[in-house]
């Protein structure tokens, strides 16, 4: 087994809602191997979204440590964190979160626009990513001219543009019908086969079935961690 690309140690996150404290993550320790395909499942409020925010470096834990690709997230300033996110993690969201007035191609270049020094050949790279998700011929369409599944493909291409080590997907099929969901999950499987680590957060067992490893959360704790038998 290779070194874990993501490693959480005694991760706790407490949200204060007025006078009551909500323990969204309760002393979670977790390792995720490189090039793995992991699904994190649980009902809403189980803490899986909080975990996603921690793993993506979007939020800081109340206590405990997160290491991503060997980097201690605790030690990073907010701008260093932004840079780290940009270069290491690709995000995919339930609502796609595309810029509606920009073409698919421009949307995909978004992570590259913030690279310093300037990323040469942004448009070429974006086109390559659109080709990867099978939308090479739609690069000049605006998101409003694309179907939901196509929009999510654009979002995946955007996540891939920065050549991240980890793809974090938060309910990637939540806004899609079941047939399109299958297409998207197959695409993710293909990407995983090419060597990228994928973490999918979902409450849908069918979606989780595409993963190699399924971790189930309830009340901020891991209650199950099953590895699918890999057919040899």
């Amino acid at each position, binding site marked *: 087994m290779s070194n874990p690309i993501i490693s959480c140690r005694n991760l706790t996150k407490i949200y204060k809602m007025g006078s009551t404290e909500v323990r969204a993550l309760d002393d979670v320790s977790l390792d995720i191997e490189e090039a793995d395909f992991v699904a994190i499942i649980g009902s809403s409020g189980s803490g899986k979204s909080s975990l996603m*925010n921690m793993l*993506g470096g*979007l*939020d800081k834990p109340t206590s405990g440590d997160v290491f991503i690709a060997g980097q201690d997230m605790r030690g990073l300033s*907010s*701008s260093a964190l*932004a*840079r780290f*996110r*940009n270069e290491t993690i*690709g*995000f995919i*969201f339930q609502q796609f*979160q595309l*810029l509606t*007035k920009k073409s698919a191609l421009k949307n995909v270049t*978004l*992570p590259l*626009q*913030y690279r*310093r020094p*300037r990323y040469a050949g942004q448009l070429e790279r974006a086109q390559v990513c659109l080709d990867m998700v099978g939308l090479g011929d739609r690069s000049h369409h605006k998101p409003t001219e694309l179907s939901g599944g196509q929009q999510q493909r654009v979002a995946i291409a*955007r*996540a891939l543009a*920065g050549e991240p080590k980890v793809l974090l997907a938060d309910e990637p099929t939540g806004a899609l019908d079941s047939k399109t969901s299958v297409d998207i999950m197959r695409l993710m499987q293909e990407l995983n086969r090419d060597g990228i680590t994928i973490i999918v957060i979902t409450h849908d067992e069918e979606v989780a079935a595409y993963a190699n490893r399924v971790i189930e959360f309830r009340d901020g704790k891991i209650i199950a961690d099953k590895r699918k038998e890999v057919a040899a």
Partner: protein
Amino acid sequence: MRRFLTTLGLAFSSLIEHPMRSFLTSLGVIIGVGSVFAVLAIGEGSSRQLMEQANSVSTRTMTVYQDWGRQSGRSSQARPRKPFVESDVEEFRAIPGVIAASGQVGRNVSAVSETADWNSTLTGIDTDYLAANDLTMQRGRAINYVDLDQRATVALIGQTIARTLYRDQDPIGQRIKVNNIPFEIVGIVNSSDQQNWRGQDPDDFILAPLTTARNRITGGNQYVSSHIESIKVVGGPDANLQRIQAEMDIILKRSRGINATETPDYRIFNFAANIAARGKTQQTITILLTAIGAICLLVGGVGVMNIMLVSVSERTREIGLRMAICAKKSDILIQILSEAIVLCFFGGVLGLLAGYSVSYLPFWGDDMTLVYAAQPALLAFGSSMLIGVVFGFLPAYHAAKLNPVEAFRHE
């Protein structure tokens, strides 16, 4: 530099997505910059006009004329109506700083040549007259001491007389009958570029020696033989006109036997003082209007800030997304700030154009000139950019401190 341009380009492309809103947002800045620019141009124009006037002979001129009206309350026999005399003029001429002092008498006359007649004015003049009135000879000779001494019947004529009475002929050497008294024309005076303040034709005049005019045209005075109706005194370019005026006052009071406490029966009109007062009024008006323009600019800035805040909260999700997948806080700060700056930049450019086109509006009279200079343009434009930075900062800061996790939940 390249990064800077890229950022501005991004800001521009995001503003162009809402062209109407962007235009209306910068309208306040456009009006502010335009009005500051135009007002400063108007102020500069009128102050230049004043400066030109202040350097001319006419503004260094003081005119003395009689003011019998001021004797109201006195009985008619208390003091005879006393005219000025030639010795007054000579004493004025001796005041240091005076370059010309000229006494004159005048009448409306009928002038007849061999072919035409014309109603004009005849002015009896001395040798300082041309200098005191900023006139030059076009042809022929001026009136000299010999003419004055001999009461010669010679005359100078203005352009209008030459044109109307002598059409194709050369007037010099010709005879002109003024109230039936024949004069020989010896010279023609150049056209005056001074606008006559009564709106009369400034070139319609006949000039004759003072002594001749007094003797033959205007008639004498029952008390003094060397009487004069009004006196013009011109100071040198650097002369202290107030001091000259004070000395003139002393001379006249002594010559006319007026106590220091008495109301004088004459008036000295000082054109320079008049101009200075006008200059002050204009300066005040310019400052006032500029202040209004500046307030407009300020209000425009608040408008920019307001719309930018709306636009930030409208784009909360977009900003959250940008922060989640790529952008640093400083990237967001710079993005919003540069949008405000770009707005104010275009507002400034359009404002300068608007301010410039004000001069093509039809309601400016001939005496109103707008002088555009680089300095006020830079001032107005610079303040619009400053407004962009200052009023862009709050919305930009607002955007940059958004938490990406919360920004996402924002609908």
